């Protein structure tokens, strides 16, 4: 599947296209099929996202969206060396799928 990611213009936070808006959580990402360019152009023009790009992803055994490349998996959760600064600071095991 193809999903879209980028950064929030004001905060720089990593965001994912959920079909309607940009979510902080990769689990909300939707398959955009062949609509990537169209969505990115529209959303960037509206300044709802900064520097968006399309990546490959897949669903894991629990049906959760996981980016194919490690770099995007690190982006999805946060630095592996600072679990306290990730999106799930109280769940250190959340990093298990990143690496």
């Amino acid at each position, binding site marked *: 599947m193809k999903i879209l990611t980028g950064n929030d213009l*004001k*905060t720089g936070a990593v965001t994912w296209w959920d079909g309607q808006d940009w979510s902080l959580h990769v689990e909300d990402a939707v398959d955009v099929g062949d609509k990537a360019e169209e969505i990115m152009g529209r959303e960037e023009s509206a300044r709802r996202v900064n520097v968006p790009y399309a990546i490959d992803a897949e669903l894991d055994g629990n049906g959760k969206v996981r980016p194919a490349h490690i770099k995007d998996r690190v982006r999805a959760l946060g*630095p592996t*060396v600072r679990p306290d*600064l990730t999106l799930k600071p109280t769940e250190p095991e959340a990093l298990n799928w990143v690496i």
Partner: protein
Amino acid sequence: MYKYDQYDQAMVDARVEEFRDQTRRRLDGSLAEEHFRPLRLMNGLYLQLHAYMLRVAVPYGTLNSDQMHALADIAEKYDRGYGHFTTRQNIQYNWIKLEDAPDILADLAKVEMHAIQTSGNCIRNISSDHFAGAAADELVDPRPYAEILRQWSSFHPEFSYLPRKFKICVIASDTDRAAMRLHDIGIQIVKNDAGELGAAFYVGGGMGRTPIIAPCINEFVPLDQLVTYSEACLRVYNRYGRRDNKYKARIKILVHELGKEEYTRQVEEEFAHMLEQGVEPPLAELERIKTYFQDPDFKTGLTDRADRSDPDFALWIDRNCHKHKAPGYVSATISLKPVGGIPGDASVEQMHLMANLAKEYSFDECRVTHAQNIVLPHVEIGRLHELWTKLEEAGLGTPNLDRIDDIIACPGLDYCSLANARSIPVAQKISERFAANGKADELGQLKLKISGCINACGHHHAGHIGILGVDRKGVENYQLLLGGSEAEDTSLGKITGPGFSEDGIVDAVEKAADVYLAHREDGERFLDTYRRIGMDPFKEALYG
């Protein structure tokens, strides 16, 4: 240390307001990202893996306590409670919001700091010896020369759009503590047979994907021609550097392709022409700058002995303190490498503490080292125990300078959008491994450096042991290098062979260390043994 004059302050203040307006226009949509990106980069603002990253310049690594407090305040107010000291003697913040960036720059300007020219194809922060002005073995304090080059290179219109970034280093001792020959221009202040001071120019060094040790192109440039000669070096590069290919655009490629002799000939020709133009700043300006770097008011009659009855304290003195030019003083290094810690990271509390200790114990000064530690340059030996006790209480008393756990590591894939692999977890695991097996003490000096990609921000080419993280079909893989050095015996490490997994590289480092322990002769460091016995015994242990 240097104090801004009205021109410095006016330039920095004007840049803050200019960037505030640019940011406003980006946020309201008047500026597209493609137009804004070069503007934010000129102010040190990158877009990294998790957020914007701001790189703040620390000229030649020197800070006063007010500046260190300000850096801590920024970490607390605008970031997530910590900063990362880098191999370029700068500091980076990883969680910056674009809308806050102008206010951060304004806060920096209040303490005579900025982020200008910390990115982009321009002359970057001038680096220097972290013991400058304190070391017993230096000819002079190199920082006035670094400062005049900083002023010359700041906003220099001719050098704002170079083929690639450009890094200059200035030292003034035969012992190289700043990786001088691995810079685009490395300058060593030297003395000639007549006893006059001059500058030896090493041009075309660097790490990255094509590591090269800079050759010396002129052994003695009179100091009243320092800026002119630097400008001649830059002009030839600016004219002929490879703008067509990013990977061949650094000056090291130009010097290598032209050859040292031809590059030097062109520089000398340009230099002769420029001498007639009178571009050198008046000597009075250098003398004015020197007044800011006069020795602090060192006391006399101080004890040169510390009470070594506490073995932990004695160990810290032996490992983390450096001989000072003034009797009764040492330069003390605060290690930012606790066992299992993140190299170069310091919390808000630690930064405030280091600022307070600089004020109380070191004439209001501290330094950032290229090895990602902090130095208090002028500490009375008689007050060392008091200082060490406070450091210990804050987790800053690790006695490991230049040892295997004093690891240089770039931010790697945990933070950096260019990285292919994580650096920090590897550093943490190696540090923990050698703390657990007790071999660190036995190994003595062993400089280990890790980069998460070929750009080599973690100086892996120059490590006695170097590690380079690569991407192998989407999986992190780590190459091992042996035999590098960033010191006066500069050398580039060689790759041992096929790479290793994250855990495998930790085992590999231990095996390499064991080979050294098995083969070393009296007084040999790891590097000396490697140079004597060569790669084969290490390869045998790693792959045999």
